């Protein structure tokens, strides 16, 4: 039976569609011209200029600081949540809990942004780094909980019984078997939380106060105010970081799989 080539042609076109704009942006970041249209020679000048923009580096530092904190808090909240959802799956409380975890995922970001803004205004909380962290943790919990829950559902719990059978106390079985085996899942969940926090613009924009500028907010105002070549350079740096992260994490998970005999 001959298979149609149409899906493969579409796939090729989709990949070109995905990568062409990014490629042009990267090339343009090395273009001496102020506007992307014409090639005026290879140059690093936008990168050099980028290094002399202290506002960007402050924003980057804020972003990193927020993301690390958010990752830590949401990993704890998301993991306890996943454990509860998994262990007590069918109780009424857990059904409600699951809905509560799931709903933030289907709510458009702008709604979460405006509702948090209203809550902070109503409660008289000063907008700033703190409100950004609170908001980010709120949307990261759900992702962490669902990723960890997925791992728990695939987890063969007779292994825990085996550890108990061999003399391990409940806590020992958790520490020596459950946690090491969940570690890759926790790492994946943490990476997702970190990326979401670093990348978030909409919600952050609503709850950020003066002085609490993150990188996406900085990039947004640069886009609005037309600092095109600088954004090209900054984007290229961020893209390089993303590609390396994805590549390394794929490699890591692949080598784990290889060790596991896949």
């Amino acid at each position, binding site marked *: 039976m001959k298979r149609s080539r149409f899906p493969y042609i579409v796939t090729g076109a989709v990949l070109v569609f995905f990568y062409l704009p990014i490629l042009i942006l990267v090339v343009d970041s090395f273009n001496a011209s102020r506007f992307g249209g014409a090639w005026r020679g290879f140059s690093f000048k936008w990168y050099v200029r980028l290094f002399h923009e202290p506002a960007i580096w402050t924003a980057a530092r804020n972003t990193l600081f927020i993301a690390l904190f958010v990752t830590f808090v949401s990993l704890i909240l998301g993991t306890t949540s996943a454990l509860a959802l998994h262990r007590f799956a069918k109780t009424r409380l857990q059904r409600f809990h699951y809905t509560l975890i799931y709903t933030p995922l289907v709510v458009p970001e702008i709604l979460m942004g405006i509702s948090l803004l209203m809550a902070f205004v109503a409660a008289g909380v000063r907008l700033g780094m703190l409100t950004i962290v609170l908001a980010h943790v709120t949307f990261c919990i759900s992702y962490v909980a669902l990723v960890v829950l997925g791992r728990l559902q695939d987890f063969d719990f007779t292994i825990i*019984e085996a*550890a*108990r*059978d061999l003399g391990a*106390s409940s806590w020992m079985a958790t520490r020596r078997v459950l946690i090491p085996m969940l570690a890759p899942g926790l790492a994946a969940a943490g990476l997702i939380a970190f990326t979401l926090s670093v990348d978030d613009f909409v919600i952050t924009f609503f709850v950020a106060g003066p002085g609490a500028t993150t990188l996406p907010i900085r990039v947004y105002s640069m886009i609005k105010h037309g600092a095109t070549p600088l954004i090209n350079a900054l984007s290229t740096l961020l893209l390089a970081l993303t590609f390396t992260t994805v590549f390394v994490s794929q490699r890591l998970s692949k080598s784990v799989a290889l060790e596991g005999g896949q």
Partner: protein
Amino acid sequence: MAEFFEFKNVSKRFGSIQAVDGVSLEIKRGEFFALLGPSGCGKTTMLRVAAGFETPDSGRVFLDGRDITDLSPNRRRVNTIFQSYALFPHLTVRDNIGFGLQIAKKPKAEIGREVEAMLSLIRLEDQADKKPDLLSGGQRQRVAVARALINKPDVLLLDEPLAALDLKLRQRMLIELDLIHDQVGITFLYVTHDQGEAMSLSDRIAVMNAGRIEQIGPPAEIYEAPRTSFVAAFIGDTNFLEGVVADHPEPEYSRLRIDGLPDVMVYNDKQIADGNKVFLSVRPEKIQISRDRPESKTKRNAVPAVVEDVIYLGPTTKYWVRAGNHRLQILRQHARFFLDEKPIRWKDDVWVFWHGDDGFMLERFRRDDEKLVAAPPQKVGDE
């Protein structure tokens, strides 16, 4: 010998299902004891109660005279071989085997020594530093055995340990388990649905059905003298015949009147009184089949029949015959008694006969159990 591992009136219910219903068992020290039954009969629940993963709703469990019913799994000197083996995928073979000793905080040198001894017992010295995922099914099973035995448990629980292996490997591991049991002298409680495994390994078997024990005894007794229709039908194959006890021509032997057949003699050690309605079970390989009428002897039951179907099975042939309004299955080996014997064919008139000692009157009969025995072949559309 004193009772070593004892279940007293244990019951366990899950929701609307009574998984175990008042089971009492006594297992002797060093015994290889099998719990045999179909899936869902409660045997796995019994094993989980023994291991401490489930607490019974009522009843107690004793090990060496001590009540261990409420002891958590890690505080029992009982170890389990799981059906899936449940090896720790993040640990090497060596660390898997040494896990119990590490938890018990034994000195490093001792752990090393014990693990090496176990590795040589299961002949996996060269695989010690691999992760379990890289091992074959048989190797994993041996690691699971070693990981449990290293703790020198009082009782080793085995949950269908051979189910995940293919036939040839299963036969090899069967011999290996038997050897290990002989070597270590630990009490084995072996749960299986495979009667072949239970028969060939165990000292005694308890047959379970629907949360209750149907019969306990050595393999030969279970097979040769089933007490209930379930045991007769679940283990091996059988014919059921319904009749009425007519009289006692001899002590311990009764004459049975069966609708549509000549009277048959049957061993009656249970002293079932005349006039009672009973069920007789006769295994197919205990029945002879011949074109000629056999000489009549006391306690030999001979019945005329017509062959309805002949099924060639390799080492044996199965005949379905109709005798009166009963359909009987007969299993016959191919070795010929007379060289000029003519093969028996479809529609032949034959005699079928068996010794009175080979039939058993059942204490308990349930219609449902008839479904467990091989059904006579039916023509398409013939209900």
